């Protein structure tokens, strides 16, 4: 089945999210749509899937005009979608989730799940998915949940499958498996629209690439194009993907962690037997799949965790047991995992967010009052230094894009005198341009002789920035390896596989 979009236009107020987009996907083709966050990819796909209504434009399925006003229209036309945020009810079983919206009832009015169980088994066996229809979705790993979504689309005869950022939540291994599944589906005639901003995956799997920037199609490319070319098309200017990591003299130990164990409120052990050093002028990356204790370990560095045993030494000072404020004053910059939740106060202004850590001392405070003039001047200066794009420093921080928010966090954290930078998932959800900025900044800090502890789930990021890589698995550090490690080896370590 072929799918063609002609002149799709959609605006939200003054923002034109899709500006006259044309696109054609052939039968059995994997068509990648590449674009930064906010380029309008998701809007476009929500229009195709009937979740949003286009202001103008037409959708053709097999060269006949198709009205799609509701998701049910899209399903009927053979268009299925796997959303970035899964459309699965966590407290339902796999079968219940799949039958939802297509329910069949028995004679006595109760739900009939037998047929759907059989269908799930059939599709699951065909693709080797190993999905049990009666498992609760919330107990399944993310990768399996995604397969449930794919099974659903296949059961309801999707000929065109839209995958919206499908690899964002997957481990490297799961990603590779998904790419194989996509290939298999395409071979069987399913057309796939693959939405992503990850260049490596596009090059592996796509037949054709369309690049969208600021709501417009800015070009098409072949998978043979280099990553740099694709990135430049995406961002609209030349982009440095692998920042220069010059060899650099490494100084003495700045951070020394010994026999660290962290428990949660229920007394469960989250982190155990963790020991490592970070030296001045060095980036130590803690790699690992989400949820293996990295978040807690990062928080413990400035004493945000409650139940900590062992020792964290910054120079000669013990951090464990000190207040967060003391830890920060001792010279730690902390970039939290979630800038929206932990890094910033969304209703505060940009200027206020920039002094969250130092609002109580001179020159920002005068007695019990803040000195708004100084606060504002400092904000102007900081934002300039870190290239934050905004209208006024009095605007709420929530008016900024993700990249600019992260720059505000960095500006605040790095304007203290620091010896150690703890950065947790610093580029999560950022666009290529902002990622480039953050990466360069981290390397610049390293070159100035600061110690950097980087927590990241992104293989590419780890390899681009780290001098050494520690892999976390189930709360422990499995191995510490030099940055010359191959992505394959690192991927295996992240999955808990240690070579003899």
């Amino acid at each position, binding site marked *: 089945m072929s799918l063609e979009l002609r002149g799709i236009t959609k605006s939200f107020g003054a923002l034109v999210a899709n500006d006259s987009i044309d696109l054609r996907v052939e039968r059995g083709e994997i068509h990648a749509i590449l674009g930064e966050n906010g380029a309008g990819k998701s809007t476009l796909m929500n229009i195709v899937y009937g979740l949003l209504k286009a202001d103008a434009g037409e959708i053709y399925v097999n060269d006949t005009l198709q009205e799609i006003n509701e998701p049910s229209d899209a399903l009927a036309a053979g268009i299925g979608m796997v959303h970035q945020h899964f*459309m699965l009810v*966590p407290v*339902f079983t796999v079968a219940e989730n799949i039958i939802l919206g297509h329910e069949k009832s028995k004679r006595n009015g109760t739900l009939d799940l037998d047929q759907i169980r059989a269908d799930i088994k059939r599709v699951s066996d065909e693709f080797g998915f190993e999905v049990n229809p009666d498992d609760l979705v919330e107990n399944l790993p993310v990768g399996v949940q995604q397969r449930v979504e794919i099974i659903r689309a296949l059961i309801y005869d999707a000929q065109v499958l839209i995958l919206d950022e499908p690899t964002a939540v997957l481990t490297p291994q799961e990603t590779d498996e998904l790419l194989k599944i996509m290939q298999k589906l395409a071979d069987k005639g399913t057309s796939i629209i693959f939405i992503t901003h990850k260049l490596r995956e596009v090059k592996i799997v796509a037949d054709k690439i369309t690049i969208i920037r600021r709501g417009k199609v800015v070009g098409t490319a072949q998978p043979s194009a280099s990553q740099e070319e694709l990135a430049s098309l995406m961002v609209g200017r030349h982009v440095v993907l692998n920042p220069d990591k010059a060899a650099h003299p490494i100084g003495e130990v700045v951070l020394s962690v010994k026999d660290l164990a962290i428990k949660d409120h229920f007394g469960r052990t989250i982190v155990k037997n963790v020991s490592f050093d970070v030296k001045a002028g060095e980036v130590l990356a803690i790699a690992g799949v989400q949820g293996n204790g990295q978040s807690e370990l990062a928080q413990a560095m400035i004493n945000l965790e409650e139940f900590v045993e062992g020792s964290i030494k910054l120079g000669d000072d013990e951090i464990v047991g000190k207040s967060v404020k003391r830890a920060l004053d001792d010279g730690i910059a902390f970039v939290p995992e979630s800038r929206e939740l932990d890094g910033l106060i969304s209703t505060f202004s940009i200027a206020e967010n920039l002094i969250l850590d130092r609002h109580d001392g001179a020159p920002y405070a005068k007695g019990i009052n803040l000195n708004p003039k100084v606060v504002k001047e400092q904000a102007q200066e900081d934002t300039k230094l870190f290239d934050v794009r905004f209208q006024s420093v009095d605007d709420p921080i929530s008016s900024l894009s993700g990249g600019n928010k992260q720059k505000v966090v960095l500006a605040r954290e790095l304007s203290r005198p620091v010896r150690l930078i703890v950065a947790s998932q610093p580029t999560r959800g950022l666009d290529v341009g902002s990622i480039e900025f953050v990466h360069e900044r981290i390397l610049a800090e390293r070159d100035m002789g600061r110690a950097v502890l980087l927590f990241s789930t992104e293989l590419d990021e780890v390899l681009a920035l780290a001098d050494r890589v520690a892999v976390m698995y189930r709360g422990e550090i499995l191995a510490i390896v030099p940055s010359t490690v191959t992505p394959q080896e690192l991927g295996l370590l992240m999955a808990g596989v240690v070579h003899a």
Partner: protein
Amino acid sequence: MKNLSAAELRRRRGVYTMAILSLLAFIGFGLIPASGRNVTYGFILDKEWILIHQWVIGAKSASQLFAGIAMLGSIVAYMQFRARKTIRVASAITSAGLLMSFLSWAAAGKFIPFTGLLQGGLLLSVPLIFGSMAGVMSERSGVVNIAIEGELLAGAFASGVIASLTHSTTWGLLIAPFAGAMISFLLALFAIKYSIDQIILGFVLNVLVYGLTDFLYKRLLIPYQSTWNSGPTLQPLKIPVLWKVPILGPIFFDQTIIVYIMYLAVIFIHLSLFKTKWGLRTRAVGEHPTAADSVGINVNRLRFKNVIIAGMIAGFGGAYFTVGAVGSFGKEMTAGEGFIALAAMIFGRWSPWGAVGASLLFGFADNLQGVLSITGTPIPSQFMLMAPYIATIIAVSGFVGRVRAPAADGAPYKRGGNA
């Protein structure tokens, strides 16, 4: 046992607490008090098959006996816990033992109409059960229903007035759901269509119904009482054969039609919610409305429908206050029962049977307090009134496990809002 999950730790804490309470009851009710007084439990209400008139036993020995049962219950609970089996039955036995141990102490030297105590407890829980069913219906589909109180009161008012005007309890019963639905229509309209904060909205609706019924009561029902406010009441119907079962028969099967409809409503709501297409969709829009929308379910229409039905259920429950009990409408006669129904729904973890259990507990405690305040007890009756709520707080704060509301409860759904 090592590596217990949070839920298991909580369960273990619950088991320990039960064991300690049983021991305390044994000492406090069974050993310390002076001996020599008897407690009399009366069983007979009507003409059951087997006549067990009453049971006279020394108050101390009764307390010891029941506390002993509670201790056994907690030991069984512990063994079940070790074997990783459900401790529900054992907990229920322990709780009942504790309660009876207390009762035997509190009523030493007195007569306790045991069957009547339970029957009255069931009656007092009728509006709570209807109210909490309305809560389950509405909140399972994602709309917070604080307006249960108003729906109950509207139902009580309408059924009382109509029954009085028509001299017919049937008309009174028939009109009650529509009165409740009128209130829930307002809730649905503003909460779903206009995304007004559901807590504030529900509260305002309650105040609206209070004000409106107060006004009509003063201006219409008091001056013209004989026409407007002197309706007939429903008479109990005995279910053939079943009502003759000793103890249970008179409690469950010698009641008004409202109670029988309640049994059916609970069973029907439970089955519908967990076994039918409607139930699956209802739970889906309450948990993950975007997912429901993406498979072609009209989220807001379903929510609208469910909120209206919820109002009808609560409205019907409101009829219990007038045609089901005293006949005439009294100012603010629901007296906060709607809020207690809400608490029962939460205590019952948004499940129909759980809500019924909690409602029964509240109703029973309320009636126990009434009975004891008449017979006279060593402790002030106000403290007795507090007991079920203290039990609720303790239960909700730790022992029933983490209480989890439907994930999208209270969040208005708009497409493309926050997916």
